[in-house]
Every structure is written in C-alpha cells, then in structure tokens.
C-alpha cells in the first residue's frame, strides 16, 4: 500500500530536522513555493483531499473561500485539539513526525496567503508542545520558516497555543474564540471563518492529519494522490484503533479497505474466543455499527455514509460480545454532558438530561418510557444547536438504543400493573419502581465498556 502519512513515523530521530530532510521533508513546501498560490489550491482541489478532522469537507474548496485583501491578514489555524473519544492519530503524527505537520502548515499557509499560523494544541498534549516548538525552532534556524521561507520571499511565522482541556476547543469557531483569549463558545454562522474568523479576519482551520497530507500531494502530484483510495475518498486515513481488539494502535489505511479485514489483520481480531459485537468507526460522536452492519462496510466516506454512520476522525472502537452497551453508552453520554460548553440550550440541558436518564436507568430506577424519552430528547437536540457538538452527543445515544434496544429494555421496570391496587399482591409503589432482576444481574457483572483511558 502507499504510505503517505506514516512513511517516516518509525524513523528514529525523525524529530531532528536533518534526519527529516534526509527523508524528503520540506521538499513539498519547496515545490509549493515554486508555484503560485492559486496553483497550489488547484492542485489540492484536484487531489480530492478532504478534511480529516471529522467533517470531510474538501480542503481545496475550503481554501478557495479565502480572498486576501491588503488590509485583512489571513490566518491558518492548525487544529491539534484532538479530543474526540477514541481518537489519537494526531498525537501520533505530532510526536513522531513533527516536521511533516509543520510542512503541511507551511504549504497551507502559503496557499491561502497567510503569514501567521497557529498550532492550537490540546492542553493534555503539553509534552508535544515541546516537540513542535523544537521543530519550529529548527525550521526557523534553517531558514525554512521566517521572513523569507527557503529564500522565496514568502514569510511565515508559526506559534503554538496550548488549550486547557476542553472538547469544545476542537470545534473550529470554539477554537478561534479560545485562541482569541475568550471563553470557547462556538460562534453562530454566518459569518464563516473564511470571511471573519480569528480576530475577525479571514481564517482557515485545518486538522493536523489533513495538513500532513499536503507535502506528499505537492511532491507526488494530485493525480497520484487521487489514484490512492476510492471514489470520492482519495488518499489514506489514519485510524486510531482501540477497544477489544488484539492490537490496538494507529494505522494508516488506504481508503476503501474493508472494515472487518482491517480489524482482523491490522487489529489482530478479537481476543481469543470472542466475536465482534459492534464497532464505532470514527470517534464516539458517530453512530455505532453492529457487527452485521460492519460486515459490508469499507473505510471511506461514501461507504460509511451509506451504512448510516461517518468516517469521522477515524477513532475506531471495537466491542466484542462480552461488552455491555448500556454502561458503555452512559460513559459516552457522561463525556458529552461534561464537555458540552453550555452555550446553547438544547445541548447544555439535553446532554446533561440524557446522561441523567441513562444513569437512573442503570441504577435500576428507570421509567417505563425512558428509552423513548431519550430518543425524543435527541430529536429535540439534533440540528438545533450552534455547533456540531449537539449532534455529536445525540448520535451515540440514538444509535446505541436503536441497535441494541433489548439490552436497554432489560433495564426498564415492568409496565405498570393495570389491575386496581386492591387486587395486587405485595406490589407497593416502591417495589414497582425497582428494576427487574436483570438489572441487578447486569450490574453485578464487571463492566467492560470501551477502554476508559481514551474516553
């Protein structure tokens, strides 16, 4: 297979500029500098590269919305606030090939006419700030960055900004707000960042992995990139695999690779004696796939969409047949309730409410209509929030319940006894509220959800 992103990630000392340059680092930037901005944008548009942060928006088209004006500086923001549960691919790239990311930043900044770029780094990745700062210093000292990058006359400065550990800062307008020193409340669009983003100036926000694709596109050409992968999903995708698989880790996968094949080959399959039960293909905010659904799916945008889910960030979490879905869902719902920024009503109240209902359900104190209530709550949130986090919080709840409903129903109390109270035997209102024996049984077993460390 063609390795685009992980060619040098196993190279010792790849963080050193001379080592990286021996492997071809900054040749893509040099190639970009030898062409006009528009040509670079056209090249990237022709490559079919789509955003790897989760939404999959065509990168070249995003850039083409930028119209530089003399009095309006353009900014490139690299989104390294990787916080989608199950996702750790950007960490891998930043740690093992920082110059690749930096080169991607430089190419994108040149293409959109930005002379200032920020790397917005997740607060928990503080150790990577040292790695990236080292890479920036080396590149500056070597004349790759600075007032005249590689002697071209084009100037670029790159700064690192550390977040403080909020999921919302990965949302592009939340990131912009945070970078401006404000509370990371996403902004209502319009205006879009391309017209009024960071400091109200034209701004592009690109994911780390997206940018890491650019050097290869610049050196190898758009046609070759478009030839890798399938259909409208060009190139490769980094998948961060976790959960109940034998070999969790970060893998570069050519778009179009069958999901189960990937799980069994790279992932080493389920632990001995276990069967795949379900898989979350792209971070917890995309709908889960049951094993049956996953069977025909390939790892690319179109196939995932056809299966009713999304490629998302590539944060793949596998569940084997010992996994219990309700506690796993509660863990996910609690994450979104904790991370909802609280700006707009449906998400602020809805995430907390869904987590609360799930919690009481698992505590054996559910109400007969709780599952429908959860689904309806999701309906009231979906598409009605300022940013995508509302939808992100709804997808797992709705898909888990719809696809594994019997497991959730087992937690419900029995329907109320229709007979008049004087004909009942020993069923006071208090015992009626208690869950069925199944609840006690389910709760006495150890909970084996997805690995909580990455959640």
């Amino acid at each position, binding site marked *: 297979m063609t390795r685009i992103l992980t060619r040098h990630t196993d190279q010792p000392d790849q963080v050193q500029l001379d080592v990286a340059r021996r492997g071809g680092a900054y040749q893509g930037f040099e190639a970009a500098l030898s062409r006009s901005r528009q040509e670079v944008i056209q090249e990237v548009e022709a490559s079919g590269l789509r955003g790897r942060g989760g939404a999959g928006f065509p990168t070249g088209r995003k850039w083409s919305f930028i119209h530089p004006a003399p009095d309006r500086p353009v900014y490139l923001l690299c989104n390294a606030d990787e916080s989608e549960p199950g996702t750790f691919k950007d960490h891998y790239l930043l740690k093992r090939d920082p110059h690749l990311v930096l080169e991607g930043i430089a190419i994108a900044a040149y293409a959109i006419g930005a002379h200032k770029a920020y790397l917005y780094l997740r607060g928990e990745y503080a150790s990577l700030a040292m790695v990236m700062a080292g890479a920036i210093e080396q590149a500056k000292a070597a004349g790759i960055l600075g007032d005249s990058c590689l002697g071209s006359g084009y100037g670029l400065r790159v700064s690192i900004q550390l977040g403080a550990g909020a999921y919302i800062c990965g949302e592009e307008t939340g990131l912009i707000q945070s970078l401006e020193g404000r509370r990371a409340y996403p902004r209502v669009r*319009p205006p879009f960042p391309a017209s009024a983003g960071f400091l109200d100036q034209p701004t592009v926000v690109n994911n780390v992995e997206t940018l890491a694709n650019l050097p290869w596109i610049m050196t190898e050409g758009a046609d070759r990139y478009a030839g890798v992968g399938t259909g409208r999903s060009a190139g490769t995708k980094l998948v961060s695999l976790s959960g109940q698989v034998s070999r969790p880790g970060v893998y570069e996968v050519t778009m179009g690779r069958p999901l189960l094949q990937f799980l069994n080959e790279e992932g080493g399959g389920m632990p001995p004696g276990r069967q795949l039960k379900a898989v979350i293909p792209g971070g917890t905010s995309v709908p889960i796939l049951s094993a049956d659904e996953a069977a025909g799916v390939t790892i690319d945008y179109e196939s995932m969409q056809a299966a009713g889910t999304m490629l998302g960030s590539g944060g793949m979490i596998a569940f084997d047949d010992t996994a219990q879905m309700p506690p796993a869902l509660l863990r996910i719902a609690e994450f979104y309730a904790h991370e909802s920024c609280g700006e*707009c009503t449906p998400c602020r109240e809805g995430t907390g409410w869904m987590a609360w209902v799930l919690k009481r359900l698992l505590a054996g104190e559910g109400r007969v209509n709780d599952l429908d209530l959860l689904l309806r709550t999701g309906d009231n949130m979906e598409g009605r929030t300022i940013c995508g986090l509302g939808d992100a919080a709804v997808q797992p709840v709705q898909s888990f319940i719809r696809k594994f409903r019997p497991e959730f129903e087992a937690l419900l109390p029995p329907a109320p006894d229709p007979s008049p109270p004087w004909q009942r035997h020993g069923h006071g209102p208090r015992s009626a509220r208690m869950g069925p024996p199944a609840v006690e049984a389910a709760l006495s077993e150890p909970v084996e959800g997805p690995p909580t460390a990455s959640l």
Partner: protein
Amino acid sequence: MPLVTVDGQQIEVEPGATIIQAADRLGVEIPRFCYHPDLRPEGNCRMCLVQVEGFARLVVACATPVTDGMVVSSPHTSAETAEAVQGVLEFLLINHPLDCPICDQAGECSLQDFYMHPDYGLHTSQVDVVEKVRKRKRIELGPRIVLDSERCVMCSRCVRFSADISGLAELQFIHRGNRVELIAFEDRALEDPYAGNLADLCPVGALTSRDFRFRRRVWHLAHTDSVCAGCSTGCNLRIDHAENRIERLVPRRNPAVNSSWICDEGRLSYLRANGPDRLSQPLLSGGEEVAWPDGIRHAQELLATDDASGTRPLLALASASATNESLLLFKHLVTRAFPHHRLDFRLSQETDLVGARQDHLLRRWDKHPNTMGAFYLGFSEQPGGLDDYLQAAEAGDCVALVLLYYPPLVGDELPPVAAALARLLELCPHSVVLTTHRLPYLKGASLSLPVAAWAEEEGTYTNYQGTVQHSAKATEPPGAAREATAVLADLLHTFTNHRPSTAPEVLFAELEHTVAAYRGLDYQHLPSRLASVYPPEGRMHYGEEGFSGR
C-alpha cells in the same frame, strides 16, 4: 432591498437585516431570550428557530440575514417550528427552579410568557427531575442587582451588555454544560453606573432589581410612558406606578436617544419626587401655611410693589427643569405683567454643559432636562444668569424676584448655586418662589408656592439634541401642590385679567407657532411617544380573561 415573507406577510428590509428584525417590523412575534435589538446577536437560546423554505434545518431568526425571496414560517404557523421551540422550552425548564410564586419576575417573565403561549407552550413535561442542578442563589451584586443563578437561562444578554455597552465586562459564565453559572468576579459589587439595566435585560428572574424587588407584583402596576428629567439627555422611560406612587422606572427603547438603556441615577430619580420633604401648601416667609387664594393674593401684593423710579427691574428666573409649557406661561407672566424685567434660566453653566458627556454612554453633565427648551424660548440674554442677577441685587438693582425652581433629580444642587440662590432671596426685597420641595437654600423666600414635580405634570422637554420629547403625568402632586402651568395661569389672570389655557396641547401649539425650532411638530406624535419597552411585554396571550391580579 430583499423582500421576505414571514407567516404569509411580506416586507422589504435593508440588506443585512435579520429574520427576527423583519418579523418584529411585521408584528410577528418570534419568541426569544438571547436576542436584543441593541446587543450583538449570539444565537444561543435557540428559541427563535424558524423554518425557511429550501433550508434543510431550522435556523435562528436572530442571526440569519434575510435574502431576497426568503419565505419564513414562525412557530405560529409551522408545526415543525412550534415543536422545536417547545423542545427548547422543555430543556430550559429541566433545571429551572419553577419558583414563580416567590419570583419577582413573575408576570413579566419571558419563560413564563412563552410557556403560557398556546402556539408553542403549554407542553406536558416528559421530564420528571428528582434532582435539579443546584446553583447559587441571592447573590447581591452591588447596590442595584441580585443574582439567582438557578433561574438563569444563560442567554448572556447581561454578559454582552456588560462587555459591549457599559464596557466594564463585569459578568462572565463559568463551568460547562448544565453547570454553567453566571458570576461577577469574586462576587464583587458591580461598579457599572448602568447596572440597573441588567434587571430589565434579564428575560427571567435571574437578575432582579434590589430597588424594586418585592415592592409590588408587576401586574398591579399602571404604566405611563415618559422621559427622564435627570439630565439633558432625556432618556425615554416608562413610569410604573400604583396607588399614586411611583414604584420604578424602566427604559423605553428609542435608538435616537437612549437605545434601550437608562443610567442608575435616572432610574432612581423618582425617589426624590416620592420623598417626604415635599412642599404641599403655599408657605409664607414666617412659616405660615396659607390656602391657594391667599397665596395668589400674597403673590400679587409682593410683586405689584410700585417701583417709584421705574428703573429697577423685576428679576425672573425659571430653571431649565421646567417644561416648555411652564416656561411659556412664565415668559408670558413676566413680559406681560412687568414691563421692566429681566428673564433668564441659567443657574450656572447649563448652556456650556448641555451637550457635555459625563461618560461614553448616556449621562450628561447638565442636570436639567430642558436647557435647550429654555434657550429656544429666549430665556437668556447677555449678560445674565444667576451670578449676574446676584450682582444686580447686591447693587440694589432689583425690585422683586420670581423664581420657578426644581431641585435636580440626580444629585444635589451645586453648592455655589444653592448659596447664590439663598443670597439672592436675602437681597431681593420681595420674592415669590414656585418650587416642589422645602429646600433650606430657598427658606428666604417671601412666599413659596408648591408646584408639581416631574411625573406629576404633563408637558415637553427639549433635550440636548434639540429633540422635543413628551413627559407625562403619572401621579398627582402631593397636598395642595398644583401644576406650575396652573399656578402661572392664576398669576397671569391676577395681573393681566386674562386666563390662558393650561392644556399642554394648546400651549404646545403656541410653541410650535412661535419657536422656529418647533415648526411642524405635532404634540400627539412627538418621536418619544413611539419609543417601545424592550423586551416587549403585555402582548402575550393568557386566554380570554387575562391576568387581572385579583
């Protein structure tokens, strides 16, 4: 100009206008918490969701610009929108304490109003919460505002006001998710001289006014639209009163004068009129209270003193806190009854200060609401003013003094002015003072006649911009005090045998005729009468009966 259809009605709006602005102009009421016409839109409450033809998702009316041919359906006509709005309401009520019976906002609470709305409210909650998120309650944020975090709907109007309008940025949210809470840093007292607006801005009972809190249930209040008389800005406001007592003042929205704000000093200016030191009977210098007919007779005797030489003038001074109508009759009295007179309104530097800003927002240094009116009426000659009068009186060049005086509603009278007034009364052989309060520095008057204070009489003020604004009568003056126009009409009748009309519209018609700056103005349609209270209220349906407060 984009043409937009909202619920079947069409309107043309300027490019860049939002859907909610178009709907507001059409009178289509779109529910909202976070939107405010004088704050930047934030789109966080999601109450103003509307359906737009051709759009896949519902959009927020407050932040979506209108495009030509857009067809919009509000929750009044679209079931999908109504359901979405109902969903938002249900979310908002999950953690709301529902303490309406003890909440001061009840009766003018948007959350309450929206829930009661038949088109999108009145849902039966599926959400039965045993344990609501608890937050902090009854936090005193300075002298004006009390915060109850549990009632907050996080609309951020107050945060935006504090950051963008008053500029002090004293409020901020902390925490995340449903634990979000409004705070002032370290609960420090708000230093904002406009903090009172936070209580008006707050659509629910989270920020309430310490001044008004628990004073009256709002449905017991009568409303009278008026303007502030605290300074020369002339902010439009509404007087809320009950049982002949002003209970509070709230701003009315007039983008040309005060947007939607008033300062705290203006907001509390009614306390002076409500005060205990009001003059309520005609008062002789010896402290003897007399009835009105005697008072007028005394005035006639004091002022009709013949000046043998005929060279010493009558000094006439009417402060620029009087209405244009009172000033007109005052001028008639002085010019018609006393051939030899001097006429002025300047107590100190009014003409220099009338436009001078005290801060970046509304307050001005000139604490007289009608300086421009007095100026237009020709009350100032050169030289003149209180200091010049004092010099004349020191020189004995004064036969008597007529003074129409209102103490400032904001702050106290400037000490030099008070001293000069006291000295002038001492020096003038005879003096008749028309005023509202028993003031120590006016003790020297031969005769004090009690007149109505601001909000007790109808009339007009001309603000620093030269805009004529209507000031209304909300309450009756105390005791025997009467409107200044009525007292002046009595005096005119006594001296000239002619009784002018005291009807404000008649007097204003004469002003319109005689003062060039007022040409073409219509008393009934002065711009200030078009100002509106924001958030709009009293338009909500509570069913056929309505709330009567019984």
